[in-house]
């Protein structure tokens, strides 16, 4: 009997149940950032927009526009401002319209940060 057959029997079914049940490995995926509006100021938003390598962040007045479609989940904004940006944990991001991927993040922070 070939060895791979025995190994397969020992390991059992490895296939994910994904759409029916959540997949355990999803927790380890790099995911786009989630923002805390209370910690975001105009200065910080400008700094994050300058850091972003894929033009996913743009500031317009008191709103930070986040394009989840352009985001590469590199984590640079999270490293630059750990108090204001965290990982969202969302990986199911397919959209039927690119406009659904652009999110408005209000800037509610006060003073410099």
């Amino acid at each position, binding site marked *: 009997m070939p060895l791979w057959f025995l190994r397969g029997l020992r390991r059992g079914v*490895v*296939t*994910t149940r*994904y*759409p029916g049940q959540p*997949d355990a*490995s*999803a927790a380890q*995926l790099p995911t*786009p*950032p*989630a*923002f*805390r*509006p*209370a910690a975001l100021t105009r200065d910080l938003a400008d700094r994050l927009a300058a850091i972003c390598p*894929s*033009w*996913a962040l743009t500031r317009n007045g008191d709103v930070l526009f*986040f*394009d*989840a*479609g*352009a*985001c*590469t*989940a*590199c984590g640079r904004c999270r490293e630059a401002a*750990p*108090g204001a940006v*965290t990982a*969202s944990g*969302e*990986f*199911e*991001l*397919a*959209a*039927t*319209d*690119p406009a*659904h*991927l652009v*999110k408005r*993040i209000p800037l509610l922070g006060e003073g410099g940060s």
Partner: protein
Amino acid sequence: MSLPRTEETAQALRRSVARQFGRSLHIRTLDTGSCAACEQEIRLLAAPHYDLHRLGFFFTPAPRHADLLMATGPMIRAFDIAARKTYEAMPGPKLVVATGACALGGVYQPDAFTHGSVGDTLPVDVWIPGCPPSPLALLQGLLVAVDRLAEKVRDLTFIQEGGPR
């Protein structure tokens, strides 16, 4: 009087069409200048852990046999004719899925060499973000494309109240 019933019948018909189409779907991948990271993840869909054949999706090398075009990369301008020919060779009804941040207009700005987004050249139905999108994200995108899963990202805000976890 018969109007609500007609509406009901039409809805039932639409649901059954989605069900029929969702049962078996052939995918042609189209690399429009990607770095091959997306291709690696697409390749993993056929591996035992993800096994997309269990959901009725299959890869085909011929556009003429394909129902769905999975385009990766920022759509370089040198590829315009090939992309159009591939799309035209597919029989209808057909779907186009833009895959990865490049295809969605993230990584490259439009310039003399690239369009910067697949949407400029092809009529895209579903957009899958990620750099590269994980096989799970690709599976969800494919299932959204055939109406077997609802789109989730429309209701996400990417705003987190309270402190960081």
